[in-house]
């Protein structure tokens, strides 16, 4: 099986590391065509480079999404509105 995939990769019939890594965003998002996704699954599953690389790519996204909180200052709206009342020419 492995040998077969390797042979296909060499013959350009299956994606190589460069191709797999450049389409990771689509792979993660699930927007790859089904056939390509299966080839990616196979490649990532057996490739010593793309395996850890993909894990790290995914971990990086996970970390980015982790830090979600920004404290909203309590007086934010009032603050902004009083600035606008001073500077914007509202109609009443």
């Amino acid at each position, binding site marked *: 099986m492995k040998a077969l995939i390797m042979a296909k990769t060499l013959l350009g019939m299956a994606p*190589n*590391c460069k191709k797999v890594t450049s389409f990771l965003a689509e792979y993660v998002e699930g927007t790859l065509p089904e056939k390509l996704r299966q080839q990616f699954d196979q490649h990532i599953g057996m490739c010593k480079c793309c395996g850890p*690389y993909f894990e*790290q790519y995914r971990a*990086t*996204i996970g*970390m*980015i999404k982790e*830090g979600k909180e920004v404290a909203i200052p309590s007086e934010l709206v009032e603050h902004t509105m009083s600035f606008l009342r001073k*500077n914007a020419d509202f109609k009443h």
Partner: protein
Amino acid sequence: MTETARGHIDKTSLEPDLEALLAGDEKAFELLVAQESPRLFRIIHRILGDEEESKNILQETFLQAFQRMHTFRRESKFTTWLYAIGINLARGSLRKSKRMTSLDDADVERLQPSFSKGMFVESPQSWDPLKLAERTDRHKFLHQAIDKLPEDYKAIVILRDIEEHSTEEVAKMLNITGGAVRVRLHRARVALRTMLNTHFQYQSQSSK
């Protein structure tokens, strides 16, 4: 919670009243500010990292929106247009205040992996789960890395991965194509991975 008088009910996905906004109606703006301030403030704050300056930029954003209402073409959602103003102002402010040197496009390019005949030139090594498990470190390393990104890459990471706006919305906010958003998001993530790699590899940190 009950809305006071005037008989209109608080809908959760309130579309701003464009006619009232165009007419310069104060109440309509007040509603807009109340609805959009938190989310817009978060984006601006993530770009700038400074609360006071973020408040100023937020005010300036609504003032510019007020002054430029007549230029809104209704080709995008109104909030997309509003956020575009805020993001532009925030990026302008960031450019002015930039003390730390950030990466440029060539640096981002250097942080992408190299290939020879389709294979990795340098094989990626696994990360140390013990190092990854340190939440405080993880945060620190990641945010240091995000701060180093060129500001357009940074804005895309914030808008797509953190605030989870769609590619199309982000494209409109930044006035670039959807394809450019996709490419830069991927390159930004890869650059971040490479920067994090030095922290999370096994037996790294030979020096303090």
